[in-house]
């Protein structure tokens, strides 16, 4: 039921990308108000990636490639290659979606650009060729970018990457006139329901019951690594090693759908930024709860040498049951 696109047409969509899909809006127009950027990020699409879990099973992963080739020029990294920019820069994210890769978008989550740069299909379009998102980040902090086409599935499949906005001082400073840091760790915590990972890109869009109302995760990952055992331990920049006297910045991104609780294993941190906005008064934390797509930038100044386990419980959104835990570590040396 339903129609294939906003025009109500029955065609399969231009570029051969959308046959059989519903409620996608394929287009790749010129960018309104386009100017010469300060920096450009080229992103293609891969849909044949995989991630090997600690139990030996392999789970299919989709994501963004680095490079204009679109077909894996930059390799199939997971998470997708980070975008790191400086506040005030005019940025172009140039998304290249080849026909065999169907349609996708880039939504720079937490960045608030013009709507034609926001990457939301039903309001603008789902990219079926090359489209350039133009934006100018104004607020330092941790963000992430993800696909916003059939989002429930595409983001779960792994179509996301970190997006970091530095202040003009560059990496090492969290906020202009604010705290600095010596070491940086990336805690991008997500859950995977492997039963979703064999679905088509357009699963459910025409109304078939694809089970997308129920996410029953069997893997719990941190920054693209199985976090259930020791795989993400001693693996920088997921883990970190800091000396007493140094400052560690933890960039925590709740990349899953179920709520999470991150515990810092005995370390006390100070949250300076959440969702790319400085807190009026930074708060001290030993753990935090987070909902889907929240971010927290936390600075630690450890005083006692030792190993600290950073563990994140993934919690069922209805029952509150702990479904699994993803772990990494911080080593503090004298």
């Amino acid at each position: 039921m339903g129609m294939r696109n906003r025009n109500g047409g029955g065609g399969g969509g231009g570029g051969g990308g959308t046959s059989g899909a519903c409620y996608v809006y394929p287009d790749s127009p010129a960018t309104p108000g386009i100017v010469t950027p300060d920096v450009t990020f080229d992103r293609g699409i891969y849909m044949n990636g995989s991630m090997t879990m600690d139990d030996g099973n392999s789970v299919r992963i989709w994501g963004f490639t680095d490079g204009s080739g679109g077909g894996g020029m930059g390799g199939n990294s997971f998470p997708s290659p980070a975008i790191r920019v400086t506040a005030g820069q005019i940025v172009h994210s140039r998304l290249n979606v080849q026909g065999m890769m169907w349609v996708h978008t880039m939504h720079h989550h937490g960045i608030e650009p013009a709507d034609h740069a926001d990457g939301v299909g039903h309001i603008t379009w789902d990219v079926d060729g090359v489209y350039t998102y133009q934006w100018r980040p104004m607020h330092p902090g941790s963000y992430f970018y993800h696909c916003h086409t059939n989002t429930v599935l595409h983001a779960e499949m792994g179509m996301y990457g970190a997006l970091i906005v530095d202040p003009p001082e560059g990496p090492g400073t969290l906020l202009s006139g604010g705290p600095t840091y010596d070491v940086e760790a990336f805690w991008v915590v997500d859950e995977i329901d492997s039963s979703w990972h064999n679905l088509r890109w357009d699963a459910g869009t025409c109304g078939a019951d694809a089970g997308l109302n129920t996410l029953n995760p069997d893997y719990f990952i941190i920054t693209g690594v199985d976090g259930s055992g020791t795989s993400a331990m001693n693996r920088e920049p997921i883990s970190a090693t800091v000396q007493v006297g140094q400052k560690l910045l933890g960039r925590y991104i709740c990349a899953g759908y179920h709520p999470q609780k991150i515990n810092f294993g005995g370390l006390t941190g100070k949250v300076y930024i959440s969702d790319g906005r400085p807190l009026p008064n930074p708060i001290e934390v030993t753990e935090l709860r987070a909902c889907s797509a929240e971010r927290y930038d936390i600075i630690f100044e450890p005083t006692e040498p030792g190993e600290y386990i950073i563990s994140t419980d993934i919690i069922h959104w209805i029952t509150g049951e702990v479904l699994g835990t993803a772990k990494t570590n911080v080593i503090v040396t004298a």
Partner: protein
Amino acid sequence: MKRRDFLKVGSASVASTVFGSVGLLSWAPRAYAQTITKTFYITEGYQTLITGEDVYFRGFSDANGMVNVPGESLIVQEGDTIEITVVNTLSTTHSFVIDGLVDSGPIASNQTKTITFEASKAGTYLYYDKMNAPYNRLVGLHGGFAVMPSGLSNQLYPGSPTFVQQYFWIFNDIDPVWHNAISNNQTPKTAYEPRYFTINGLGARPPGAPGSHDPNIDAMVDTRTALHGQIGDRTLVRILNPGLASQSVHTHGNHMEWLTENGNIRPDIWKKDCIYLDGDMGSLDVIYPFEVPPDSYPPATTGTYPMHLHTEMSQTAGGGFYMFGALTDIYFE
């Protein structure tokens, strides 16, 4: 009872008429307290959802002959006397409760009860049926209730950041198996597995879908739900969750100013693009500031952005139908 004996659920058209009369979008303060009267009819019926599935609901309705889910949102002023008359047209016992303000106690089948209470504390509340909890509430017996601070038109609480208009976003999640059990006056025995997700009683209908852009059907344009503003039209949104699923409320275009959580004023106002909404009666108050989207270049003053729950399972209907769940649009005009 057979389905044809029931009423069809209607929602948006009735409520939007009422909004005009109570001035939801432009609250006018009074120098004096007033007595506010309202009659709710507890009714039941079936609503045909996007999949074609007919799902049972109960509502606090404006008349016997309709089913309103949620019930009409009410805005009153601190110090007002509220007289609520509840006409229970059903065969089951129900109640009318606002935590912290009033509890009607049981209202038996085919009974009418009038309860009187003072709107003693400014804030955002859910009125709901506490009997047979949470089932009666989940199948639709709930609505929004707001108490404005005495004499103030533009603050949530004295000294709060200001706004020029206000909305309710009432989220719910629906497991048809549970609704069916409740329609038969049985206690659900299956694990709760919601298949539909609504905002102010509606799912969204993306462009090209049946009912798209119909404000009676499509949460993207429902006048109770979709935000409209020009730059500077700071908008209070009172967010309530009678459903059981916790959610991540996510706005595009602007961050939200986060004022309260579960009825408590936050110690500091954080600007957030995602906020944790507790399941099972969680609430939030936020201001959507309608500022120039800060990262737009050239700066944009008009445009359309979504509000959606980032708990993406809630964006579906019947296990698929992405974008037919709990989301709406925000219009910079």
